[in-house]
């Protein structure tokens, strides 16, 4: 990583990338933001949407798009949460509303933005919203519509309360919404070439297969990838397209990880404890994920998928039946807001990643996760005997973040896990 990037990274409150390919991914992001800016100059209507909308359709129709909640996450990561949350609150938005979405709303309502956001944020002409996965997600885009008075379309994804397999009438309903989204885009000057859509869906299938391979290497002991790197990797499918070489980047990531795993190289010299981080990662202080490393405890997996959307199950994706298969994969995703899907996912993750302890953080303003923490904790303990700790951590809005309490909680939990492991060995 060249010196200039290193200084920039040092200055930012984010950890410096560890794996070489991560830096190239970040360069890919910058390219995406400039492409969207370029498209806007060429007069193409820019779409503001959510990571859980079907981006295969947007790619196939050549639509430039901006992800609201990813930018909201960057607001917190780069340390501007206090400023943009205050802007949202000055509109009258309550402080009990989701902190991540207060950052997102604040960013869209204010024009004096820092350089990164001037680049990354492009004023939208159209909005495609979704009620998935939570109430905050299904409301915050209304402020973008209200500000820019844009035409909008809302995708209503059914909650997965049937457990798998998902019934046909739900898949048909969601697939019909995707058709509605296509019609909405066609009414605003875009055209759909079905072959292009099949190509994009095939690429999505391929990418998800690659990501599944990367996940296998991520489970190795010792952990080969730092938490921050895994966040950048999770954002890559969203921000780097087929043409910009997303496939190549993931192949490089797989190979870099493979090399580390084959040579037993971990992110810490003596890895003694493996933690699973459930809940929104600590965006306003990412280095907190590296904090337990001083005890030899690593965060083997952090649930960034709640920000970037879970990767779809490649077996469910079928290019010959693009809309139906995307709909089925989307409803079956673990992020779908009922706990059964989440509980099974976490119990499996504890086994796959050989986890010793689960850190389950309660973000006070979240409406999706706190209700399931006890259920997940009990299910994991019953199935695997692995203990979880639940504690308060407001880690998006820096004004509510208390590093001292977070460190004290992590120290206590690690101390107890060490004693447990010590007694066992």
């Amino acid at each position, binding site marked *: 990583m060249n010196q200039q990037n290193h200084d920039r990274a040092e200055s930012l409150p984010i950890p410096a990338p560890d794996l070489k390919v991560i830096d190239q991914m970040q360069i890919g992001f910058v390219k995406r933001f400039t492409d969207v800016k370029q498209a806007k100059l060429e007069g193409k209507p820019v779409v503001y949407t959510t990571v859980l909308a079907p981006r295969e359709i947007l790619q196939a129709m050549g639509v430039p798009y901006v992800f609201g909640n990813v930018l909201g996450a960057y607001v917190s990561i780069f340390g501007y949460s206090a400023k943009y949350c205050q802007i949202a609150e000055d509109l009258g938005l309550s402080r009990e509303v989701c902190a991540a979405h207060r950052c997102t709303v604040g960013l869209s309502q204010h024009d004096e933005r820092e350089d990164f956001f001037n680049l990354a944020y492009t004023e939208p002409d159209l909005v495609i919203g979704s009620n998935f996965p939570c109430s905050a997600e299904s409301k915050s885009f209304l402020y973008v519509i209200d500000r820019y008075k844009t035409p909008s379309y809302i995708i209503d994804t059914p909650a997965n309360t049937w457990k798998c397999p998902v019934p046909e009438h739900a898949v048909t309903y969601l697939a019909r919404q995707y058709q509605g989204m296509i019609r909405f885009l066609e009414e605003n000057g875009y055209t759909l070439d079905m072959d292009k859509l099949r190509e994009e869906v095939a690429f999505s299938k391929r990418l998800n297969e690659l990501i599944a391979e990367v996940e296998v290497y991520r489970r190795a002991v010792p952990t080969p990838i730092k938490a921050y790197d895994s966040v950048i990797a999770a954002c890559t499918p969203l921000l780097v397209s087929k043409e910009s070489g997303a496939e190549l980047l993931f192949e490089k990531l797989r190979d870099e990880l493979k090399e580390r795993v084959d040579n037993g190289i971990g992110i810490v010299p003596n890895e003694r404890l493996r933690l699973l981080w459930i809940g929104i990662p600590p965006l306003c202080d990412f280095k907190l994920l590296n904090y337990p490393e001083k005890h030899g405890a690593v965060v083997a997996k952090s649930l960034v998928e709640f920000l970037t959307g879970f990767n779809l199950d490649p077996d469910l994706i079928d290019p010959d039946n693009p809309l139906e298969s995307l709909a089925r994969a989307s409803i079956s995703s673990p992020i779908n807001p009922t706990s059964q899907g989440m509980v099974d996912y976490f119990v499996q993750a504890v086994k796959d990643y050989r986890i010793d302890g689960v850190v389950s953080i309660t973000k*006070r303003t979240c409406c999706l996760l706190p209700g399931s923490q006890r259920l997940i904790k009990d299910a994991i303990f019953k199935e695997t005997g692995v203990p979880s*700790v639940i504690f308060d951590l407001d880690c998006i809005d820096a004004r509510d973040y208390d590093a001292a309490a977070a460190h004290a*909680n992590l120290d206590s939990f690690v*101390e*107890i896990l060490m*004693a*447990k492991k010590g007694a066992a060995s």
Partner: protein
Amino acid sequence: MILAGLDVGALWTKAVILKDGAVAVYSVARTGDMAEEAAEQCLNGVLASAGISRSDVAAVAVTGVGKKLIPFADKQVSEIVSAAKGIQYLYPDMEGVIDLGGESTRVVKFEAGGGIVDYAQNDKCAAGTGMFLDAMSKVMGIKVEDMGALSLQSTAEVNITSMCVAFAESEVVSQVHRQTPKKDIVRGIHKSIASRVYGMVNSVGLSEKNMVIGGLALNVGIIACLEELMKIKLAVPENPRIISAIGAAFAASQQGE
């Protein structure tokens, strides 16, 4: 072997000397502004009163909210482990502890004489239960020590429902303005604290074999409310405020073997 245990809390610092497996001497002093000086004086005072010189002490362990500010300590022990170890040291057959501290409250479940199974700490909004009682005593003009006994005389049901301390304070102020009898308000405050602790006890699944420690364990009002909710008789050790300091010293000794 002689061991020293320090518990540096927000309001009080406690020092304990363990000698040949028993509590030789202990002392409790205000933490005040400078934690390190308070800890130093408290330790030297207790050593002097037991006629032990600093060099005879095998290890000094520290716990409590201020533990990171005590450079002269050999070992730092988390409040959860020191609460559990303190009870295990004195009552080996116990399986759980409820620590009602000034700064925060915690419930720890452990195997008799063994490792910790599960624990819960109160969430951010209900932090500072000790500080909350200090504030209430000022608002109502009653000394903290008398609140326990006073609340036992109450018969009426007054609900102080809010989890948040600042918010509960405004509730108490409005009750005071409404001429509600003091004893009923104080009982309402104790009930609200007890119900929060009961929630934690439930989430951890504590058995009856447990004891209550920490500064607020001396408050008979809170204990009565907690017993009412848990439907069991609660045991409070003779000097509940120094148990965590004992636990820290005991943890240091075990680690030493």
